[in-house]
């Protein structure tokens, strides 16, 4: 219970960080998606089942905060967690370039899924255009920021056992 509460608290802090301090790092209208980096990180470390579940719940919180409707981020982050959980044996995630490549791919997958869902459900072409225009820029920015955040997540999980479960709690 304590482990879950602390994890929940840490994730909430991450969302607060994404919506406040990270807002200062906006370049050309985009900023890195730290939540996606965490979903990829958990998928690679814990495997497809836990990766998909963690991604789904992270995305669900993101949906709750987005003010649109529930589902797009939950589904896309779940898929990302699942894909990278499946590929964990084939990826050397500690490698700097591999982290950039994986997160770039994750951001593109995530963006493409959201784009498809919005194209099918929201009849607002302008919104779909904006997402499409931001897709590659967000992917590049997220990928470039990913080694730093993966390092931070790795450090937190190593020092406190949060994010990735082990025997401490």
């Amino acid at each position, binding site marked *: 219970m304590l482990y879950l509460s602390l994890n929940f608290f840490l994730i909430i802090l991450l969302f607060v960080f994404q*919506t*406040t301090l990270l807002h200062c790092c906006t370049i050309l209208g985009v900023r890195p998606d730290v939540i996606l980096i965490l979903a990829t990180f958990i998928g690679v470390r814990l495997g497809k089942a836990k990766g*998909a579940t963690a991604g789904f719940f992270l995305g669900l919180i993101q949906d709750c905060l987005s003010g649109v409707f529930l589902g797009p981020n939950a*589904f896309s982050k779940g898929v990302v967690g699942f894909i990278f959980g499946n590929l964990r044996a084939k990826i050397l995630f500690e490698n700097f370039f591999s982290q950039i490549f994986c997160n770039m791919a994750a951001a593109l997958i995530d963006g493409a899924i959201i784009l498809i869902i919005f194209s099918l*459900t929201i009849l607002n072409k302008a919104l779909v255009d904006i997402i499409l225009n931001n897709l590659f820029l967000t992917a590049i920015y997220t990928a470039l920021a990913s080694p730093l955040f993966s390092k931070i997540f790795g450090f937190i999980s190593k020092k406190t056992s949060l994010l990735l479960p082990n025997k401490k709690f």
Partner: protein
Amino acid sequence: MVFICLIFFLIIPFSAKRSNPTFIETTVVSVVSSFQALLAHSVKNIENSLNHYIFLTQVQENNRRLKEEIKILKNKLQGFKEQKKAFERLSRILDYKFGSKREMLLASVIGADIMSWSQMITIDKGSKDGVKKNGTVVTYEGLVGHIAQTTPNYSKVLLISDVRSAVDAIDQNTRTRGVVVGKGRDIFEMKYIPVDDDIQVGDQIISSGFGGIFPKGFIIGKVSKAEEIERGLFKNVIVIPAVKVSLLEEVFVLN
């Protein structure tokens, strides 16, 4: 994965049909917004301490006060201009005073939106403070947006720069009506301006009051480009916003 797909297809129709936020959304927004408010207030306090006690205290304070006064006076001037126009057109709305009869609630901006393509902000006032859905959000400089979602203590504001936002507007000089839509960044497009209309660069665009959400007379921005499109029925009109939404700190909510 199959489980996630199942939940996804169950959630989508349910959440797309809802008119009010669900319990889970309200809870998540409330929890995250509490921390956002805490962080925003802490940052503001630190910033204020630095500004007031380390730097030139008096000059800083005077400067801030004078800037505020200029903004208030500009806002009043805008109101008088509108009144003059109304009298000139022999309007029967002789007692109209810009904004003066409306109840204004001051709110601080505590967070931006989670998605970078979405132009929403979170403010530290909610339904407990009297904020209602679709309430208009303004600053001294002009129109900001409307309340898209409320929780007891916090609210989400859909900015007029968002692509989902559309404001029925008029050119203050020519009285031409159009619809100002967001472009997802710091420019707007004014749609449906006929090619034969003499809308000019520099003209002030204000809300028309049509549409039921935004009251009449609030400044939206200034025309920065008005050009004819070859074989088009309407002009391509670009509007520069009066309010820099990315720099918002405090806003007023009108109910």
